[in-house]
């Protein structure tokens, strides 16, 4: 029995798609995405944290984090290579860009 357990654990780790994902942090503060421009690979996670009292969103073509209140966090998994431009749905002058490359 004791021989089986390590084998199962290794198998689970290798099969997990999460291992290949990188989480990219973007802060929202003083009505700006910081950094405004980031690079990521297909499958990576972009995570926004709102440090403003005013609610914000990170909204792109066909996706959105939804409303992020003060100190709230929202995520988006990039799925297609290319340039992704996004903005805050409430304050459209706030914009950001993700340059997405093929998966590593």
């Amino acid at each position, binding site marked *: 029995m004791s021989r089986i357990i390590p084998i199962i654990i290794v198998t689970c780790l290798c099969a997990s798609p999460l291992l290949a994902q990188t989480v990219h942090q973007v802060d929202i503060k*003083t*009505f700006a995405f910081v950094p405004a421009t980031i690079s990521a690979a297909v499958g990576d996670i972009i995570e926004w944290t709102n440090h*403003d*009292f*005013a*609610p914000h969103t990170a909204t792109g073509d066909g996706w959105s984090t939804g409303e992020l*209140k*003060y100190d709230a966090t929202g995520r988006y998994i990039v799925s297609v290579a290319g340039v992704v431009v996004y903005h805050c749905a*409430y*304050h459209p002058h706030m914009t950001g860009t993700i340059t997405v490359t093929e998966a590593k």
Partner: protein
Amino acid sequence: MTRIKTALIAAAALFAVSGTAFAQAGLNDLEIAHAAYTADIIDIGYAKIALAKSHNADIRAFAELMIRDHTAVNEGAAALLAKLKVTAQDNAFSKALLAGAATKTTELNALDGAAFDRAYAANELGYHQTVNKIVGETWIPAVKNAEVKSFLEQALVTFKVHEEHANHMVGMLK
């Protein structure tokens, strides 16, 4: 003519608030917190009038933004005061703000259509210009508590964005 009307409305809006500006010096931290909270409540009230009266999509979007952002700022203020275990203190300036808002509310309620939209936009510009000047030049330098000061600094960032937005809206409605 429209431009002149807009300028007059903006001037009137400014006067409605600046007439009370003499009372805003010398407030303590808790009085400043109360006045800032009151200023937020007043602007939320103006936004509710706009949503009830205006059919202009830009005006309505701006009004919704004012309700969302000023409510969030006041929630932040309430959380900070709770953390500090203090209560905001009513004062003469808060009362003067409310008196000025009552007059402006009556004026706005008497208008309709494009005239209302222009008056609302001009009032938002004048109101934010005046309040931002008070927050930036008087309250933030005067506040003693570091957390209250930091809160006001962040709130001012929000209000300045609103001022720019209102300025753009006034330009669009000329």
